[in-house]
């Protein structure tokens, strides 16, 4: 089971790593803004480098008939107070500025890449020393140091720009360092398993491709900052001495002619703005291309997008819902959950039907990526941003949840339905003590004052069997063990005295011994309160221990539902059977566990016919021709398989 999951994870990782290197340039070229910026920069650089030949006048030529003039045919960008051609001065002045940028960038790149790469690949004391050095340099105020250098060395621009490069190096070093670390860790995971393919060569190649994107992004930022800084130095009169032009001192000239004509501000400031903006946007483009995003796809995410769109769907084809006459606390009919993917949507949960009787414990079982968590999230309407839930009916204690507004729905969460999640520590807010969080839940759900809430919180902590509640209450989530944090999370879910508790893999992240304690606790709490339980898990041991009935999910669908005892004894669906065989339930000790070959098809790639067919040894042509319906087998059990007839044969 877990081998199956890990296999999928490795595939995903190596795919990502491969894509990152290979597709980078093509993706960059597809970004119109990045390409346009590169072209603009290229034109400006070429024009400045070849200024001697390109510029219409010499930078010091004076046209005293035309001083401080606007643009004209003879002076395309006008003239300054001495009648010198602004365009020519800009092109010649650009050489100073561009040289300064190159000096800063080269120094920064050499130091930053060296520090970051050595710290990231070598680790150990090199890592510590390099990163401490970076911390130290980061605390130096940049512009001040520039002026200090200029003050000491007297208008030596090269010294200033090299200093700037040094000052900006630690940021680059940190970027390179963390990118290197990320690649290193990713590779360790993958390469430990992919036999034969070792190590140094791949490592070098992957690290280079992993570091290139972030490093180039940071370097383009450095170039933009250098451009502004060089211009600022020139503007303050600390750069090249007039009458020699630079982009900075041209702005000073523009300031001086401002009383006569404001025009000169436009081209002189404009060229600095165009270059820095182009560099910044190019950096953004590189970042987007590296991260595999198309430009501007940072879509409007917001809290508002967390409010799930809910729509009423047509009545379901049936199967799985509560039989007539039997009361149920929760009844879900024809629920489909869709999440945004790119500009469209992808179905994650497909037409799910189930019900939970009062006091009943229902397990939802399946491999990762089958839609178990999304099913319960759909019921609670707590889904990632931009999600869409459609259902014929989701009724809780007779109330139709699909017709409720977000605010009305919230009245059921916590008080009617409690929730605990998979990662106990991260399910608690790291910024508040657990005692505070528990008391907050009590006050919210019971409407009591501070003192009373504290008392009830202590009672809840006792009920979940937390030792030393007073000491624990003062702790922050990261100071607790997983088991203790999960007890706090359970206590919080109980604060509203819910009639249904939904637990999303509550024991997966815990040690085996703690798992048993939590399961015992959940069972005892159910006995005390009579609340119903939905337990999402991929562990048949948990199912057998804690639940009455099980739903097996595969690729977004319920493929089998039956009471736990009969499903373990007589699984009807080949997937259920394979899952059971790959777990240790009902198998003699020391026997090797078989794994299910293949992986769960990802949402959006589900076949038209049976979704398990590609991994099923019983599959035949009929399985692949069309959707398979749920077939009712015995009383209260059903399976989505047309070959349940051969089950007995296979089993023996």
């Amino acid at each position, binding site marked *: 089971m877990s081998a199956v999951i890990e296999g999928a994870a490795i595939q995903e990782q190596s795919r990502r790593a491969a894509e990152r290197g290979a597709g980078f340039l093509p993706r960059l070229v597809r970004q119109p803004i990045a390409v346009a910026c590169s072209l603009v920069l290229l034109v400006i650089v070429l024009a400045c480098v070849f200024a001697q030949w390109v510029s219409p006048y010499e930078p010091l030529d004076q046209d005293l008939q035309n001083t401080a003039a606007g643009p004209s045919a003879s002076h395309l960008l006008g003239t300054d107070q001495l009648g010198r051609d602004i365009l020519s001065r800009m092109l010649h002045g650009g050489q100073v500025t561009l040289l300064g940028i190159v000096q800063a960038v080269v120094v920064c790149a050499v130091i930053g890449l060296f520090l970051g790469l050595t710290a990231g690949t070598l680790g150990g004391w090199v890592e510590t020393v390099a990163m401490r050095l970076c911390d130290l340099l980061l605390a130096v105020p940049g512009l001040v140091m520039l002026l200090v250098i200029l*003050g000491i060395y007297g208008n030596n621009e090269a010294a200033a720009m090299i200093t700037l490069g040094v000052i900006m190096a630690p940021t680059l070093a940190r970027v390179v360092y963390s990118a290197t670390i990320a690649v290193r860790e990713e590779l360790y995971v993958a390469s430990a398993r992919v036999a034969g393919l070792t190590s140094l060569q791949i490592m070098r190649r992957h690290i280079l491709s992993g570091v290139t994107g972030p490093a180039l992004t940071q370097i383009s930022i450095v170039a933009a900052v250098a451009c502004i800084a060089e211009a600022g130095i020139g503007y303050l009169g600390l750069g090249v001495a007039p009458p020699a032009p630079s982009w900075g001192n041209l702005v000073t000239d523009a300031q001086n002619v401002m009383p006569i004509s404001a025009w000169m501000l436009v081209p002189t400031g404009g060229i600095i703005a165009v270059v820095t903006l182009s560099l910044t946007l190019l950096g953004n483009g590189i970042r987007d291309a590296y991260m595999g995003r198309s430009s501007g796809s940072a879509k409007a995410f917001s*809290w508002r997008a967390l409010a799930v769109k809910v729509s009423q769907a047509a009545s379901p084809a049936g199967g799985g819902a509560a039989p007539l006459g039997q009361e149920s606390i929760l009844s879900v009919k024809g629920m489909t959950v869709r999440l945004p993917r790119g500009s469209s949507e992808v179905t994650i949960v497909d037409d799910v039907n189930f019900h939970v009787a009062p006091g009943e414990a229902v397990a939802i079982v399946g491999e990762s990526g089958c839609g178990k968590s999304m099913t319960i999230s759909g019921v*609670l309407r707590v889904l990632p941003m931009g999600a869409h839930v459609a259902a014929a009916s989701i009724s809780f204690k007779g109330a139709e949840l699909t017709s409720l507004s977000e605010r009305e729905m919230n009245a059921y969460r916590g008080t009617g339905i409690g929730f605990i999640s998979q990662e106990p520590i991260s399910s608690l807010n790291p910024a508040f003590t657990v005692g505070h969080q528990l008391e907050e839940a009590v006050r*919210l759900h019971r409407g009591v004052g501070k003192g009373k809430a504290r008392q009830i919180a202590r009672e809840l902590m006792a009920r979940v069997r937390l030792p030393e509640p007073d000491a624990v209450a003062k702790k922050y989530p990261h100071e607790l063990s997983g088991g203790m944090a999960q007890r706090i999370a359970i206590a919080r879910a109980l604060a509203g005295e819910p009639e249904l508790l939904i637990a999303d893999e509550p024991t997966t992240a815990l040690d085996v011994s703690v798992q048993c304690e939590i399961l015992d606790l959940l069972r005892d709490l159910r006995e005390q309160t009579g609340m119903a339980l939905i337990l999402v898990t991929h562990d048949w041991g948990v199912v057998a221990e804690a639940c009455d009935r099980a739903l097996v999910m595969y690729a977004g669908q319920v493929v089998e539902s039956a009471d736990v005892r009969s499903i373990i004894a007589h699984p009807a669906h080949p997937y259920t059977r394979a899952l059971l065989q790959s777990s240790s339930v009902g198998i003699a000790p020391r026997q090797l566990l078989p794994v299910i070959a293949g992986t769960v098809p990802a949402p959006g790639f589900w076949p038209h016919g049976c979704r398990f067919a590609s991994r099923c040894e019983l599959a035949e042509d009929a399985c692949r021709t069309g959707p398979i319906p749920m077939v009712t087998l015995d009383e209260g059990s059903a399976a989505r398989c047309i070959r349940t007839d051969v089950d007995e044969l296979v089993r023996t």
Partner: protein
Amino acid sequence: MLSVVIRRLIVAVPLMGVISFIVFVLSSLAGGSVGQAILGPTASAASVAALNAKLGADRPVLVQYVDWLRHAITGDLGLSVVSGVPVADTIASRIPVTMSLAVGALLLVIILGVTSGAIAAIRGGIIGRLAEVLAVLGRGLPSFWLALIAVLVFGVNLAWLPVSGYVPFADSPSGWIQSLILPVVVLGVSEIALVAVVTRAEMLSAMRSDYVRSLRANGYPWKRIVFKHVAKNAAGPVLTMVSLVFVSLIGGTILMEQIFGMPGLGTLMVSATTKHDLQVIQGLAVFYTAMVVVVFLLTDIASGYLNAKARAR
């Protein structure tokens, strides 16, 4: 909490020592001497040497540095080579100007940046995109150029606000505000969007977190989740960003004071730079570094208060 402060100080104090030492060594390597700077380039070698000996500038660099450091610890940063006025006094007299500018711009940045970032994170839509575009523009447009345009439009053409000078608060509170509006706005405007982008990103990442999912699933009202739980977690990184912004604002005051003719630390720095007044440059370098160190220290203390994990480290 106390240990955080102590740990920071353990880094900070040597840092200031290192910075001042680097500046000292660099200035001795640059050639020229104090005597030369005072007497000018035409002075005879003998008179320069005599003055150097009198001022103690002929001693080894390390001795001079230790001597300077001994005085610096007591708040004596020496005398300006050019004007003969104590450096510490000059700096002290100019602090209010620079602080009015930097703190004013910081308040503007915090209020507008955090508000618009929070709105973008909560409501989405155009504001978030706009903040990103403005952040790019803010980084790309040179502030001294923006300042000139602001002077042209609001000072010269519309004549709404004074274009230069600084009115001390004690002389006229309204004049003080008027003299600050243009430089403060120009100084702050490019950083607002940056803070907004970080605020939005941090709030969104908290909104996607596991604990917010659990809070929502347990029926907490959205305002409580956003303004209590999300806000406290986003506040730490935003605060770090704000402290970096403040450092960059302090640098930015140098240009703003120059453009708006304000007698602050920045204009002092620029004039000391042009006149090679090494004593003043040294004093300012140490003072600016101290300011940055204090800002980072305050940030650390506040972050520790906000984030229990950071406090534990």
